[in-house]
C-alpha cells in the first residue's frame, strides 16, 4: 500500500530516474559517446581481426568481463548515491574465501554461505554507518574498511592467501563454471544482477531514493526521506553484490586469491562505472551505463589479447580510453554551477 505522500515522492523522482536512458537536457551524453566508441571499435575489430566476430569469441569476451560487470553494478548504486565503495574488492575476496574455507572444513554448504553473506552484510553496515551517521567521507571510510577487512583475512583467517575451491562446494560450482545453451553461467549471472539492479533502481521506491540522495541530499531530506538508512542500504547492497561476484569468480577460477585486494581491480571497477557515464557527482546513470562500459573494456581487452599486445601496452590503452571518454564528456557537457558544487570526490 502506498500512502499518497510517498506515492507523490516516488512520482516526482521519476524525471530524475529518466536520466537513466541518457535523455536528459543534453542530447549527446557520455553514454552515447561510449556506445558510439564501442560500436566503432567493435566494427573495426570485426573487420580487421580474424576470429573476433564469432559467437564463441563474443561469449568468451563476455565471460572475461562478467565479474567486472557485476562489481560495476554494485559500485553503480553507491556512485549514483554520491558515494564510492573502495572496499568492494575486500568484500569480494574475504567473505567468499571464508565460504570456501568453511565448506572445506566440513561445515556444510548452507552454513558456509550464510557466514559469507553475514560477513558481507556486516561490511556493508560498517561502511554505511560510518558514512551516514559518523559522516566520514565515503572515500576514506571505504578505503579504511577495505584495508581492515583484507587485513582480517591476512592475519590468519586463512592458511594461505589463495584458497582453493573445495569439492564440498561442487554443488554450486555452476554459478561460475559451465554454460547453459552455450551461454556461460557467469554471463547469465551478470545478466541476472543487471536485471535485478535495473528493476531496483527504476521500479522501486528505495531505488528512487538512491537517485534522490545522490542528486541532492539536502532536498531529499527536506522532502521527508530518511537519508541515512538509504545510504546504509547502498553500502549493504554493494558489498553483497561484491560477495556474489566473489563466489562467481571463485567458482570460475577454482580458487579465491585474496591478494587481489592489493591489485588494481578496484580501479577497473571505477573505470567501468565512470566510462559508462555514471557521474561521480551522483544522481545520474544506471544499469545501461555499466553494461556499455563493461562491454567497451571487454572488447578492447579481448582484441588486444588476440593481437598479442603486451601487458604494459594494454594498460596504456585502457588508461587512454578512459581519458578520452572523460575528456569528451567534459567538452560536450561542461560543468555548470550545479555540478561543480557537488560531491566529495
Amino acid at each position, binding site marked *: 500500500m502506498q500512502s499518497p505522500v510517498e506515492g507523490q515522492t516516488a512520482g516526482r523522482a521519476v524525471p530524475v530516474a529518466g536520466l537513466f536512458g541518457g535523455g536528459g537536457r543534453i542530447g549527446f551524453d557520455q553514454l552515447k559517446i561510449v556506445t558510439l566508441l564501442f560500436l566503432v571499435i567493435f566494427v573495426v575489430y570485426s573487420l580487421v581481426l580474424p576470429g573476433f566476430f564469432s559467437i564463441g*569469441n563474443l561469449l568468451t569476451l563476455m565471460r572475461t568481463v562478467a565479474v567486472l560487470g557485476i562489481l560495476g553494478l554494485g559500485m553503480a548504486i553507491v556512485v549514483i548515491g554520491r558515494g564510492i565503495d573502495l572496499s568492494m574488492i575486500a568484500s569480494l575476496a574475504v567473505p567468499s574465501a571464508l565460504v570456501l574455507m568453511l565448506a572445506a572444513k566440513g561445515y556444510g554448504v548452507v552454513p558456509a554461505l550464510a557466514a559469507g553473506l553475514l560477513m558481507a552484510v556486516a561490511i556493508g553496515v560498517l561502511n554505511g554507518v560510518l558514512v551516514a551517521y559518523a559522516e566520514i567521507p565515503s572515500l576514506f571510510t571505504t578505503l579504511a574498511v577495505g584495508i581492515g577487512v583484507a587485513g582480517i583475512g591476512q592475519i590468519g583467517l586463512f592458511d594461505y592467501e589463495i584458497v582453493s575451491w573445495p569439492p564440498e562446494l561442487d554443488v554450486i560450482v555452476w554459478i561460475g563454471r559451465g554454460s547453459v545453451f552455450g551461454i556461460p553461467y557467469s554471463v547469465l549471472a551478470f545478466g541476472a544482477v543487471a536485471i535485478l539492479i535495473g528493476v531496483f533502481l527504476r521500479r522501486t521506491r528505495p531505488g528512487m531514493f538512491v537517485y534522490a540522495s545522490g542528486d541532492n541530499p539536502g532536498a531529499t531530506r527536506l522532502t521527508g526521506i530518511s537519508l541515512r538508512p538509504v545510504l546504509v542500504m547502498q553500502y549493504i547492497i554493494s558489498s553483497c553484490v561484491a560477495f556474489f561476484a566473489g563466489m562467481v569468480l571463485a567458482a570460475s*577460477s577454482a580458487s579465491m*586469491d585474496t591478494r587481489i585486494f592489493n591489485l588494481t581491480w578496484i580501479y577497473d571497477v571505477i573505470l567501468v562505472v565512470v566510462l559508462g557515464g555514471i557521474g561521480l557527482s551522483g544522481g545520474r546513470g544506471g544499469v545501461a551505463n555499466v553494461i556499455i562500459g563493461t562491454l567497451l573494456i571487454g572488447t578492447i581487452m579481448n582484441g588486444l589479447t588476440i593481437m598479442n599486445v603486451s601487458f604494459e601496452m594494454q594498460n596504456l590503452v585502457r588508461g587512454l580510453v578512459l581519458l578520452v571518454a572523460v575528456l569528451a564528456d567534459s567538452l560536450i557537457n561542461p560543468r555548470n554551477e550545479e555540478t561543480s558544487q557537488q560531491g566529495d570526490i
Partner: protein
Amino acid sequence: MNKLVKFACGLAMATMVGAATAAVAQTSMGDPLRESYYSNLKGRKVVFVPVFMGLDLTEGWSKIMARQADELGYSYEVRNSNFNTAAGAQTITSLISEKPDVLVVQNPDVQSYAKLLQQAEKAGIHVIQLNMKTNYQTTGFVGADVELIGEKQAEAAVAKCGGGDQPGKVLVLAGPPTSPFSAYMLKGYENVLNDNAKIQIVSVQSTGDYESSKAKSITQVVLQQHPDLCAILGVWDNADVGTAAALQEAGKKPGDILVTTSGGGGELACKGLREGLWQYYVSYDVPGQGRDLNALILAAMQDKNEVGSTKTVIYTPLVTYTPETLGDERCWTLDTLR
C-alpha cells in the same frame, strides 16, 4: 702353537680394551668450535622482506628460517611488503638505519630494490636475495635458476608438440613483465623454442601479478582463436589453476593440451598433477631452498670480512614432477616442514 694363539688373542683383547678406553676419553673432550659458534649467533638479528606472506612459498621459507633462529637463539622477523613495491622499499630504507645483521629479500622485480640493497650492504648489512633477485649481486642469492625452468618447460612442450606435420601451437603465460620470473623464464623458453620450426608461439601474455582469473581469461581468448592449441607454458602453479579451469570449461580432458608450470612443490603441485590441472611441473623445492638459505644466513653471520666482499650464488636443485613420477615425489605442507 696353542700358546701362541692364546697370546695373540690376549694381545688383541688388550688392544681393544685400550682402544675403548681411549674412545671414552675422546668423547669427553670439548668441541673447540661450539662456544664461539653459539655465542656469536646469540642476539643477532635476521629480517625477511617478502613480496607477500600467505603464499606457500613465503610461509614455507619463513617457517624454516624461524625454526633455525629459534634453535640458535638469534632473532628473526618478517616485514611483509604486501605486494606493494613502494611499501617494500620503505621497509628496506628503514631497515638500513635499524641495521639488522642479515636482510633476506624477495624482490618483486629486477630493478626496484637494487639501489637500496647496495646501500644496505654499504651500511654493513648482509643482504641475501631469495628466489627473486635484482640485477645487483649481494652477499648471497638462493633460488631457482629460472632460465633453466623455462628451458625444461619448453623441452616438455617440444616433446609433446614437435612431432606433427604442422608446427605445434604454444601459449606462453608470464608474470609481471619486470619480474625475474617473467624475464628469465621467457629467455629460457626462447633458448629452446626460437630455432625450433616445429613449434609456433601463438601468444605471449602477462597474467598481471600472477592472477589466476587473468590466466583463465587469456587462455579462453587464445583457445578461441587457436582451437588446435597444443601446449601452455605457465609461470606459477597458483596462477595456472585458472589456466586449467579455462581448459576444463572448454571441454578439454587433462592432457589434451599440455600444461606446464612451476612452483615451490607444495601440496598444490601434487593436487594439480593428480587432478590433471597440469602434466609437467618444475619444483624449486622450498624445503631444500630453506636449508640452503639457512646455511647462507649462518655463513653471513660468521663472515668477518667486509660486507659484500664475498658473494655466493646458490641455484637450488630443480625437481621435475609428471603424473608418472607422482608416486615417488612427496609434496610438502607447512606441517611436514622440518
